[in-house]
């Protein structure tokens, strides 16, 4: 029997390291230590400098030891020669993949596309394949590429919510599903996936690294409300702005400021809406920031606000709780599992601006409540959502899956 350290695992990710998803950077680095033979398959090249800063040069290099990339169209003829060579080298696997694609109803050019895109991993034998997001599974002919290898995939939100029927084919091809919480587990069961093949592993609060948490930002002296996320419609900024306006209307001349950290397509909307509501002076858009800077900006705030309308679990809320901020969140997706209502913050019904305003005012006017909830949040995160616990759970899940075959 092989030792754990000898096991060959293939982790398929869209990109690594990714500035948008720092949690994967830490998770992969830790998993690579537990499974040194883990190889990566990336859909796009990542920003290596970014991982350098978070992990250090050597750790980053270690993760990127065995990396394969999805084929990109290029002007370099040598690349095409390599593709043909790889396909011919593992001819048996190539034919099997081609036939499998045709059996699945794919057209000839689609089947050839699969051969070209994934030529680097053709014919390789792995003990386990891990697909980091269900969305990636849709591009792969999973059973054609990894005939009898156990395949584990992660559901991280947005998949079942935004395209309810779109992942049924992927679910039939994977052996095991990892989800971030009960919300996603129930969604998967609703799609006919058996519950005993699902493991819940919540995300972890990320290490703060070299961030000086005592260093306060140049915020206003009053109450500072903070949100940190991509500026996309799923995050419900339309309701957050209205709740903030509600506070200003009800509390009058109280010094309250709203800081929004992040960038995205809804920036235009947030700016225009803030101007229309005449609250633009009370709102600061910090734009995209590095993970360290986000930690600094969030830790200097007093209340964390996120009124998402669609959510898997949300890492930023977890991070804010780890930094000791009470959170006001909506009940979208996994947020009620993320925040303990009435203990580490308030969970309000989504689309309900009035309830969010009430919860925020409750926290603004009650300093002791803010402090108490902040401490409780920090304790809960340090107890339940640590990186060690997350990596242990992943290791256990991977080992179980490898044993089954």
């Amino acid at each position, binding site marked *: 029997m092989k030792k754990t350290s000898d096991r060959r695992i293939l982790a398929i990710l869209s990109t690594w390291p990714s500035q948008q998803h720092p949690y994967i950077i830490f998770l992969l680095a830790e998993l690579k230590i537990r499974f040194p033979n883990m190889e990566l398959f990336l859909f796009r090249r990542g920003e290596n400098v970014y991982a350098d800063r978070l992990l250090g040069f050597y750790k980053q290099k270690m993760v990127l030891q065995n990396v394969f990339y999805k084929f990109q169209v290029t002007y370099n003829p040598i690349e095409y020669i390599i593709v043909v060579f790889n396909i011919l080298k593992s001819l048996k696997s190539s034919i099997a993949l081609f036939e499998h694609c045709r059996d699945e109803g794919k057209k000839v050019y689609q089947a050839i596309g699969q051969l070209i895109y994934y030529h680097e991993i053709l014919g390789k034998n792995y003990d386990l394949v891990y697909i980091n997001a269900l969305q990636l599974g849709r591009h792969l002919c999973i059973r054609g590429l990894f005939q009898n290898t156990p395949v584990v995939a992660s559901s991280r939100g947005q998949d079942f919510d935004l395209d309810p029927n779109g992942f049924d084919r992927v679910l039939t091809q994977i052996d095991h599903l990892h989800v971030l919480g009960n919300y996603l587990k129930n969604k998967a069961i609703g799609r006919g996936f058996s519950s005993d093949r699902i493991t819940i592993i919540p995300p972890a609060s990320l290490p703060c690294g070299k961030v000086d948490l005592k260093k306060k930002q140049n915020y206003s002296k009053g109450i500072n409300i903070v949100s940190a996320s991509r500026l996309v*419609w799923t995050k419900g900024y339309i309701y957050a702005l209205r709740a903030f306006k509600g506070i200003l209307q009800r509390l009058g001349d109280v010094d309250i400021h709203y800081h929004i950290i992040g960038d995205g397509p809804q920036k*235009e909307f947030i*700016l225009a809406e803030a101007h*229309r509501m005449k609250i633009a002076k009370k709102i600061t858009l910090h734009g995209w920031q590095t993970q360290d800077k986000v930690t600094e900006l969030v830790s200097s705030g007093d209340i964390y606000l996120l009124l998402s309308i*669609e959510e898997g679990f949300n890492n930023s809320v977890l991070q804010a709780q780890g930094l000791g901020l009470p959170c006001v969140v909506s009940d979208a997706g996994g947020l009620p599992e993320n925040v303990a209502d009435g203990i580490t913050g308030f969970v309000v019904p989504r689309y309900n601006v009035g309830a969010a305003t009430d919860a925020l005012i409750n926290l603004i006017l009650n300093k002791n409540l803010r402090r108490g909830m902040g401490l409780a949040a920090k304790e809960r995160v340090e107890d339940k959502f640590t990186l060690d616990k997350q990596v242990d759970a992943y290791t256990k899940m991977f080992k179980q899956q490898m044993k089954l075959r």
Partner: protein
Amino acid sequence: MTVLEILNSYPGETFIREHARAILRKSTVELAWAFAQTSLLGDLPKPVSGLSYCFAMPNFNRLSKSKKITIRLRRPLRSWHHEKEATVLRCVQRVKPDVIHFQFASTAVQWSWIAKKLNVPFTFSVRGSDVQVLPLLTKHYLERLKKISVKSKRIHAVCDNLKSLFCDLTGIPAAKVDVIRTVVSDRWKAVTREPEPNLFISVGRLHWSKGFPDLVVAAKLVKDRGGDFKLLIIGEGPERAHIEYLIRDLNLKDCVRLEGAKSHSEIQNYFRKATAIVLSSLLEGFPNVLAEAMLAGVPIISTNCGGIGEILQDKKNAWIVQTGAPDDLASQMMRCLDNKVVQERLARIAQKQAESIFSPEQHCRDFLRFWQVDKGST
């Protein structure tokens, strides 16, 4: 007199096509069109008959490599910057315009150098996002807008609200800005109303400025209060996934439906059947769809944003609600379901007003005065 109008994308928005028809039908002004945001080159088929010229101005950010190389080969020794400028000017010069009119302020900001090079006076239109949103996004845009506003001969705004916003932003005196209302085709008047019971429609691009999430939440509130209705949302755009998700999440599949983009004749058919049109916009100049609905005699429920309040007043010719308040919108929808006689009366009043406000004659007269065309050419 020849007026060269510079538009963004081919074949031009409906309201600009109607504007051209009104001008060409009622005056002897020669109208030429140039498109600034296309990947096309050279003369194009005329979207409105009667235009003296219709062509694409080379937008070098959008042209393909092969097109750029073709242009470059003409004068290989000349600097690329000068060649680009000369190519654009060559297109425009053959029109010999007396006035250049930019149909959007953002287009004027980008292309007003043409007027300077040709030594031709220019005017431009202020229509909405070019003064409501763009100045918030980029630092230099506002500075450039101020500069070209000073240099332009006159400025056109589609409603008083945009006029005052523009004057506040740029510091331009109000006397330099003319409000000329949009023009609506007579075919909307020909819609024969045969309203189906409890059918609401909403028409617009699926964009955040239209506030469709508020409309869907309002629909949920109406349903929860026992209202029996259907809501059809007509249009396409980047917010589709958002609205689809809301419909699923709020369990409204049986009463709210996304219809996608529809042609004008299809929209006329929706207007014929609709109990009322509902507009939940957050940011508008004056929405053309409201002008069309007014002329077609469709009862209107709308938010009070931009220039809407200048023409539509609550309980006088429409039902007007506060912007960004789904609760109010739901209450008005409920009231509309219960008061069919009142809503048809309001719609008739609005229709009469629309006939005079959005008439092609009025629009043509106003624009000739705006360009300071001699009276003899009318």
